[in-house]
């Protein structure tokens, strides 16, 4: 499933709700195999940008090219076929609350694979083990903790071996060990499946540990301030705001 070249290219993008513009003038590209991190202060529009990239919120202006083709100009059916190659982890997990964890994972598998019921169940157990939730197959989302829900959402997102994974703050609400395991898992997914990963995160360890490219969104000017490798953003970025942000407020 791995491929090379540019996966997503964003040109002159403006996103927002109604008349309210959240971010504008966004230009960047995501290459195959990248672990692309989106950073910025709370409320600057990271989740909104992610939703535009994976097909939930139509941008106000500009274009998103998915492998060279305009994602939002394409017919709905085509866009939905592309979206089947995406895996998405929402900020709060967004598990279907009327189903058990195993059923949550089984639903998309049943839709898009020819696996038998038993095979689907095995696959569900496998991805749940990957995120450290073995044995929780028959629990409902309301019966597990917030961090566990997050991990179960991650398991659901990776169950179909997606080409591009979108994570909204995967490690928020996790303890340091789980969060480190999650980073390892993300790296492994990227290496073994060749998945491209786009994630919003505040975890400095993740940004510098596994991120290959970072985009900084600014809440005040409503546009991107910097794009480059995470270390470059921290050490050499001409904008002091970005450097300060990545050093937790300590000037360097």
């Amino acid at each position, binding site marked *: 499933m791995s491929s090379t070249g540019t996966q997503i290219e964003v040109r002159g993008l403006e996103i927002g709700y*109604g*008349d*309210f*513009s959240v971010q504008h003038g966004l230009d960047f590209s995501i290459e195959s195999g990248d672990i692309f991190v989106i950073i910025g202060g709370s409320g600057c529009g990271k989740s909104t940008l992610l*939703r535009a990239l*994976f*097909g*939930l919120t139509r941008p106000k202006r500009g274009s998103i090219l998915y492998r060279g083709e305009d994602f939002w100009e394409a017919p709905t059916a085509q866009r*939905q*076929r592309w*979206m*089947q190659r*995406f895996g*998405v982890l*929402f*900020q*709060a997990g*967004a*598990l*279907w*609350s*009327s189903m058990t964890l195993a059923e949550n994972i089984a*639903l*998309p598998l049943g*839709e*898009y694979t020819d696996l038998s019921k038993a095979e689907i169940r095995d696959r569900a157990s496998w991805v749940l083990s990957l995120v450290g939730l073995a044995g929780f197959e028959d629990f409902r989302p309301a019966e597990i903790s917030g961090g566990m829900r997050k991990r179960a959402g991650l398991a659901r997102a990776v169950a179909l071996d997606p080409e591009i994974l979108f994570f909204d703050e995967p490690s928020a609400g996790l303890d340091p060990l789980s969060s480190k395991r999650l980073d390892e898992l993300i790296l492994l997914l990227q290496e073994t499946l060749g998945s491209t990963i786009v994630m919003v995160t505040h975890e400095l360890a993740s940004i510098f540990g596994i991120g290959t490219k970072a985009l900084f969104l600014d809440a005040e000017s409503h546009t991107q301030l910097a794009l480059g490798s995470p270390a470059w953003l921290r050490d050499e970025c001409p904008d002091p705001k970005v450097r300060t942000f990545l050093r937790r407020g300590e000037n360097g």
Partner: protein
Amino acid sequence: MQPAFEVLVSRPSNESLCIRLAGTFESPGPAPDAAAALAAIDDEIRSIHFETNALRSWDSTLMAFLLKLVRSAEALGIAVELDALPSGARRLLALATAVPEADPARPEVAAHGKLARAGVRAAGAWVETQKVTTFVGEVALSVIKLVRGRARFRGGDVWRVIQEAGPSALPIVSLISFLVGLILAFVAAVQLQYFGAQIYVADLVALGMAREMGAMMTGIIMAGRTGAAFAAQLGAMTANEEIDALSTFGIPPIDFLVLPRMIALVAMMPLLVLYSDLVGILGGLVVGVTILDLNFAEYVNETRAALDLADFGTGLFKGAVYGVAIAVAGCLRGMQSGRSSAAVGEATTSAVVTAIVWIVLTSAALTLVYNVLGI
């Protein structure tokens, strides 16, 4: 309560203001009034400073006062010297003013004249109509997919809704229908007694229940019970991004969530209506036999003579249509819900209101159609 503090505003020079804080500023005591201090500011004031020799203890009561003072002074371009304040208070204030007061770009709630407001409301109504029509259209497309055998949902969901909507609604449907039958009988009896024609109470109750009241009462009960439940379920799913998650997996939420609910309700409504008709007629019978002293066999015979299959048929058909209206209204309001628990509550209320309005409208329309067709 008597304040344990004192705020004294003095004017040592023409250009400066001195605010003397004395005593204890602590919850749950009263708070100092920033407006009173601000009132002392005029055009000539250039700076404000504090005097705190007699300040004994303080908490958020004082901080809220100081923040308001500092923000207002800043807006007027007046310098505020904080040196005299306790260092803890100074640091808290620095933290609070580090991020400037946001002016979040929200859609403006215009406070214009009557005409403009009417225009805004009309535009809103138009948008709402568009949304409802779009949703109904999408549901119709899903139904076509269903007929072609290509809709995607889980059969188990249909069964669960049938359980919730059918058998568990029987007690309340029984109670309401029985009482409505009783009421119809009483209303009819008062008039018919003048003519000594009490026996026609049977006809009136039978026709009234079978053609109108059975379906209408069941519809209203189900709007409050099941329509509200649909809106709450789907509203909570919207708030939790579960519906977004379905979309990203390419599973159409309308197929997956709305269809099973609609199928179950359309299947159950005619059955409930039939049951309600029978219970209502029983209610009428009880009044007839016990209070109006009618003969049991006579009453039953009169009822059977009054009704034919078409009368039941019209009521059952209405019931099925109400089922569609309730399911669509509940699901529509649920999926339109905002992302908070308050929004889910509003969605539930709005679902019930919408469903009842739709029921009454379709009832009127169908009665008219039946009349024209002579059914």
